[in-house]
C-alpha cells in the first residue's frame, strides 16, 4: 500500500504495525515530507531512517 507506514511506525521495528496497517495519515505526511532526492539518492549511512526511505521508494515503484 502506498504511503502506508509512518516513519515512527517503521522505526519502531514492529513488523505487525508495518505489515498489518491501515492507512496512516501521519505516514502519508511523513512520506510526503521525504523529498525525491531522499528517495532516489543512495544513502551514506545505514540507518533506520534511510531504510525507511528505501521502504517508501519500493512502495512507490510497486504502484508505477
Amino acid at each position, binding site marked *: 500500500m502506498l504511503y502506508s507506514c509512518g516513519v515512527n511506525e517503521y522505526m519502531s521495528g514492529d513488523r505487525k504495525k508495518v505489515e498489518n496497517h491501515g492507512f496512516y495519515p501521519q505516514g502519508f505526511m511523513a512520506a510526503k515530507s521525504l523529498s*525525491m*532526492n*531522499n528517495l532516489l*539518492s*543512495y544513502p*551514506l*549511512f545505514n540507518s533506520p*531512517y534511510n531504510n525507511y526511505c528505501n521502504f517508501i521508494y519500493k512502495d512507490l515503484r510497486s504502484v508505477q
Partner: protein
Amino acid sequence: MKFQCDKSLLLKELTIAQEIVSNRSTISILSNILLNIDNGKLVLRATDTKTAFESVIPVSADAPGTITVNSEKFIGALKNLPEGLVYFDLQSDGRFQIKSEKRNINYQLRTMGSENYPWIQWETDGTRFDIGQVDLLEMINQTIFSVSDDDSRFLMTGVFFDYQDNVLKLVATDGRRLGFARHEISIGNPFSVIVPTKPLNMIRKLASGQGLIEVMICEKSIVFSLDNQKIYSNFIDGQYPNYQRVIPESQAYTVKIKRDDFSDAIRRVSLMADQKSKRILMTFTSDTAVISSDEGELGMAKEEIPIEFDGPQSMIAMNYQYLLDPLRVFPDSDLYFLFTDTKRAVTLRPSLERNFFHIIMPMQLAD
C-alpha cells in the same frame, strides 16, 4: 541612559545580532536587543537562548543605563537615517528616542526592562585555542552547506568539530553528502562536539579573514571571540554519525575536469532537470563528459565538456545541487571527481594538496 554613536558602526553590529533575534518568537522579549551603557561603552546583546551575541562598541556616553528594544524596528529606524552621528536618549516615560544630526526625525521606540531578558550565564572555563580566521573561515565555508535542514535529523543540523592527534576536523553531512575539512593545530585534550550553524554563519559575516579568532570549547557550549565581539552557542547534544566509516579510503577512477567548465555545464543542464529530484546524468568517456538531464515533459538538455579520464565508460546520476554547492567554494581551476562504482560514494576534491574534500552519493539511474 544617553549616548551618541556613528550610525554605520552601530548598524554593522546590529545586523549581525539580528541573525539570532527571533521575530516570530512568542516570547516577545526575544525579539528585543539589549543595550547597556557603562564606562563609555555600549554593550549590545542578542540571544535566542541557545545562541548569543555580544558586542562592545565605543560610544560617547552621557548617562549609563540598560534597556531592551525591538530589534527589527531599531534596525529599520537606523537604516533609514542619513550617515553620521545618531543621538539616543531614554525618556522619562520609558521611550527610547533616536535622533539624527542631519534630519529632523524623531523616533520613539517602546522599551522593555532588562531584568527579564533571558541572558544566561555562559560558561567561562574550557579549552581555549587561537586559530587563523582565514583557516577557520575556509573550514566552515567548505562544510556548512552540507548540513541537514531536516529537523528530524537534528544531529546532522550542525557541523561536527572533531579534534585529536593535533588535527582539527570539521565535518557536515545530511546523510546523502558529506563535507570534510582539516587543519593541523596543537590544542590540547581531544574533543568532539556538534556546533549549530547559526554561530558559524555569524562568524562568516563577522570575520575579516585577517588575524586570529579565539575559540573556547566548554562542557556544553562553544565561545568564539573576535576583537570586540563574542558569540556563544550551546552544542547539539548527541552522538554524531561515524563519518570516518563512509569516507572511501581509495577510489578506482579519477576524472580531471576544469571547474568552470563543469559548473557552467551543470548550471545550464539543470534548467531542464526535474526540480523535485534534481537529478542529472553524467557519462564519462576518455576525453569527454556528457552532462544531461532526464527527458522531461518540457524537454531536456545535454552538454559535452572536455575531461581527462582513463577508466571505462561510466554513467552516474547525481543531484546537481550537491555538485554546485562545493564547486562554488572550490578555489582551484581544476577539480578531481573520483569514483569506483556508479552506486557508491563519489569523492569531489580540488588539488590533492588541499585539506578538504566532499563525498557525494549518486542517485538511482532508473526510477
